[in-house]
């Protein structure tokens, strides 16, 4: 692998980890508040579709982003209504959302645009384009620092920067604010939060709104930043990978970043190694690399590398004193 290959893989890693980071942080808010969220995949998919359709109709990437967030929020609120207000089974609700999103996006995509559910190709103006930082071209030849600045830091689209800034922001919100303290408390011991006079349901609804927002950005990124159209089931399991990353990161913001970068790197590598024959090993089975995130998470879940302890009240509907 030469230097150009290396740059390619690093850039691909950044691109591929972005939706994972956003979705995993989305799941973090939900799960730290005690609401298990299997529906990250569905929310991303709904957002990707909505963003692509609205961007195609209006020609504006920003309206597309709003549309994506709105679709994801609707899904998040359905999940909230089922699991907070009606105290339904959160896992079942998440599964339902994934199917509904997968079905509706393909159904409307096919009915409105034909072409197997693919939305119209977006022009560059209706997408989030790459942003070149000032002076990036000028310093590109400076060894190391200039290279890092011009290749890794500059030249991504806005949502990539948003994702990487969302990590410290989430850390700050969860660990340093009153809201974060209550969020964590409501996921560990909702009865105590209730006793303190704080509404458990409202806390959880607010957490789910943040989940909806971040999943909306993640889905928007997929359809109008990373690619130029929505294609059927374009999330392709990334919502589940993000869920795995969240577990692997033990529900903490900074580890979420490292895990998503690792999983993104594995993805970039598997694309890179397609058909490559490594001396001594032979052709690398791409499926094995693609399965690695799941295998790593399984090993963690088995307790061989640390222990993943979820929020204590996760998955349990809160019932006030009776």
């Amino acid at each position: 692998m030469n230097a150009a290959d290396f740059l390619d893989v690093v850039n691909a890693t950044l691109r591929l980890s972005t939706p994972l980071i956003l979705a995993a942080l989305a799941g973090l808010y939900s799960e730290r508040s005690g609401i298990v969220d299997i529906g990250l995949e569905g929310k991303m998919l709904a957002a990707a579709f909505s963003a692509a359709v609205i961007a195609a109709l209006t020609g504006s990437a920003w309206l597309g982003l709003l549309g994506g967030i709105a679709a994801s929020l609707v899904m998040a609120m359905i999940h909230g209504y089922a699991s907070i207000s009606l105290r339904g089974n959160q896992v079942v609700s998440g599964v339902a959302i994934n199917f509904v999103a997968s079905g509706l996006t393909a159904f409307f995509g096919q009915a409105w645009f034909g072409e197997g559910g693919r939305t119209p190709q977006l022009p560059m103006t209706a997408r989030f384009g790459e942003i070149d930082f000032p002076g990036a071209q000028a310093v590109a030849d400076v060894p190391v620092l200039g290279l890092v600045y011009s290749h890794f830091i500059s030249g991504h689209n806005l949502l990539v920067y948003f994702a990487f800034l969302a990590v410290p922001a989430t850390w700050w919100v969860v660990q340093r604010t009153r809201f974060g303290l209550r969020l964590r408390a409501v996921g560990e011991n909702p009865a105590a939060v209730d006793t303190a006079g704080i509404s458990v349901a409202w806390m959880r609804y607010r957490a789910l709104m943040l989940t909806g927002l971040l999943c909306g950005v993640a889905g928007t990124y997929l359809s109008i930043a990373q690619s130029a159209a929505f294609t059927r089931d374009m999330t392709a399991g990334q919502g589940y990978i993000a869920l795995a990353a969240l577990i692997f990161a033990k529900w903490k913001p900074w580890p979420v970043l490292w895990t998503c970068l690792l999983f993104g790197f594995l993805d970039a590598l598997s694309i890179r190694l397609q058909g490559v024959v490594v001396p001594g090993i032979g052709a690398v089975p791409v499926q094995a690399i693609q399965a690695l995130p799941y295998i790593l998470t399984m090993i963690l879940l088995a307790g061989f590398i640390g222990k993943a302890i979820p929020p204590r009240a996760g998955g349990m509907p809160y019932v006030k004193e009776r």
Partner: protein
Amino acid sequence: MSSPIPAGPDRKASGDGISAATAEKPKALARPAPDKLPAWADYALLPLINVVAAFVVSGLAVLMVGANPLEAVKIMVFGALGYGEGVGFTLFYTTNFIFAGLAVAVAYHSGLFNIGAEGQAYVGGLGATFVALALDHFLPWYATVPIALVAACVFGAAWAFIPAWLQARRGSHIVITTIMFNFLANALMVWLLVNYFIQPGTMDPASRPFTEGASIPKLGGLFSLFGADLGAAPLNLCIFLALIAAVFVYVLIWRTKLGYEMRTVGLNPTAAVYAGISTSRIIIITMLISGALAGLLALNPVIGDQQRLQLNFVNGAGFVGIAVALMGRNHPVGICLAALLFGMLYQGGAELAFDMPQVSREMILVIQGLVILFAGALEHMFRPGLTRAVNMISTPQRRRMVEAGEASR
């Protein structure tokens, strides 16, 4: 998630064993409590309302693309039941969904949510294929198929074993692990098909076609005795196997000691421990049975229809099982009926996409998701209102009669 049992919706509400037991058996109460639904409403009316709600919402989606929902229903029903071949396909799909529904339901009775039926069926097909490829030249079908059946069960169960073991011994959540095992099953099968099963000189990642020695008789002949023509429908003997499996599940869950232990673990794991039941043993056994049932599903498409191992032959049937089990209230009779409904949807939906180009097959996925939503996650939405309505209709006088009758028993 750290507890061995995923929390059910009423876990907090039913903290002690007594209330959990009464919640499960309304009839065991001395008199019908005012907030309880009578059994007929609980097991027939409520699921019906949930399905109707799912269909109404789907109908709105059909309206939104400018098609007539009632016309769509008419085409679907005719496509599913209107002629012999349609019926044949409907029952073929139904067979898959019965197996998948039973797999999900068995796990559900132990409080486990098995999302992995899809992957277990996929790997089950691998077991069936090994047997078929090894024996189809030497043995007649009636010797090959029973061995393939056992192999499918064993492979499906094996794929369910690791998530079960992780849940039982390590406390990792079965939902997460079975989801991951679906992806792992997919990666494994793609790798095997592309690298090992593929026929030299072809681009199609599939095994070689099986001979007559690994086939399951179609039911076309049987139906023609009654004057029905199944056409090219792949309906085969597996449907009887599915019905046998349904009876087996009924007997297992409600008529055996093991089934009693499974339900106890599902309703109240703490009480089960005090009663001397090993929850980890029950979790593992339950998941093995669930995985085996999912593995059986593979016989129907792999040996009964396509007669070779193909990419993605399960085609979402394992996920349909979730909707089927929820709608059928995890009872074999309900599951068979729900499976029939989804069989009709799948066959009718194919016809619909043909006749109404703007309504694509993905409509079924929407209905499936909405059924899971209404029958599963939103099950408490219609219940309070329905309970009030039912109690208003059944007059106080009738309720007194019921009480008197129960008391004198």
